[in-house]
């Protein structure tokens, strides 16, 4: 009778036990999402081999040997320098002003011994069978980062937004259709300025 004014208290002690049990179940059966990575497109099998010979200056050979050492254009290179070397190669714009291949948006050194323009510049990545995958991914990451840096720079100059931000918006399911169409043309334009010509082969 004396406890009529206060409502009977539910013993909440077992609530914590139930919660811990569910938590342990989830910790054991799930894993942190790892659904992101480097997107690549493999070349088709019926590809006719190079239609016109690529001159040496338009090709940047990147080799990784079995000991995970890098050789870029026959020079031993540290992974940290790879990005700057690739950017210098892609952005070179070696073709002269009179040439039809002239690249007016390139801010590189315009060295005639390096690539003519970004559309002709090809990066070739060759790995050994013994190369470790981690190093391979780091190298790929640096090469893609070089392309992205240049693409972001052009995108900022033309559209005041980063290229990677546009790509993220475009693939996001929540953006509207009209915005996606607009983004698609812009993305296409930037991709044409710096096309991703990255060949992946294995050393025989």
């Amino acid at each position: 009778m004396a406890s009529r004014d206060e409502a009977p208290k539910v013993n909440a002690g077992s609530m914590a036990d139930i919660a811990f049990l569910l938590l342990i179940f989830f910790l054991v059966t799930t894993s942190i999402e790892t659904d992101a990575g480097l997107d690549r497109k493999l070349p088709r099998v019926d590809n006719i081999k190079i239609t016109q010979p690529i001159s040496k200056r338009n090709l940047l050979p990147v080799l990784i040997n079995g000991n995970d050492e890098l050789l870029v254009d026959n020079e031993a290179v540290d992974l940290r320098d790879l990005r700057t070397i690739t950017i210098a190669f892609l952005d070179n714009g070696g073709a002269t002003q009179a040439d039809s291949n002239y690249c007016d948006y390139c801010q590189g050194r315009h060295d005639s011994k390096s690539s003519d323009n970004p559309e002709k510049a090809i990066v070739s990545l060759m790995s050994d069978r013994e190369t470790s995958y981690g190093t391979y991914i780091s190298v790929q990451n640096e090469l893609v980062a070089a392309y992205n840096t240049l693409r972001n720079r052009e995108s900022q100059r033309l559209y005041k937004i980063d290229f990677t931000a546009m790509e993220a918006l475009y693939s996001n399911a929540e953006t509207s259709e009209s915005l996606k169409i607009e983004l698609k043309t812009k993305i296409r334009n930037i991709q044409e300025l710096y096309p991703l010509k990255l060949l992946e082969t294995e050393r025989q």
Partner: protein
Amino acid sequence: MSKFKFKKNANTPEISTASLPDIVFMLLFFFMTVTVMNTDTLIVANELPNASEISKLEMKDRIITVYIGKPKEPFHETLGDEPRIQINNKLVSIENFGAVILEKIAEKPEHLRPYITVSLKVDKTASMGLISDVKEELRKINALKINYTTFKDDAFQNILK
């Protein structure tokens, strides 16, 4: 004044633990939203490398996941030390790999087949030989969209052995 009895409460007031389940539920909701249920038991070691220039794999129904790595401890004796391919709880040899991927593509609905991405989840210590073979097989069966699945972090950590 002495009408009021000064009851000396010798007990220290108990700490209310009513909010403890709330805290635990918050942790639980965090895990429920951030993680995915693992339907595959990994037979191979699978520590993914890091990369910073990654894009998210949006549509889960268009992905075929391929795990590659050295077999884990309990299977080490029977399966050896070479990196192996695992698709959906079963180990696959490189000869059957093309056929198995074609099977998996055939399981998907018609309208998704041109958009299928093969997600390669490769252990960071695996050697490139097998991966080159896998890429050749994928080229032969025309599954050209691939994704090297990684964690999002600084890529220089991969090379610190």
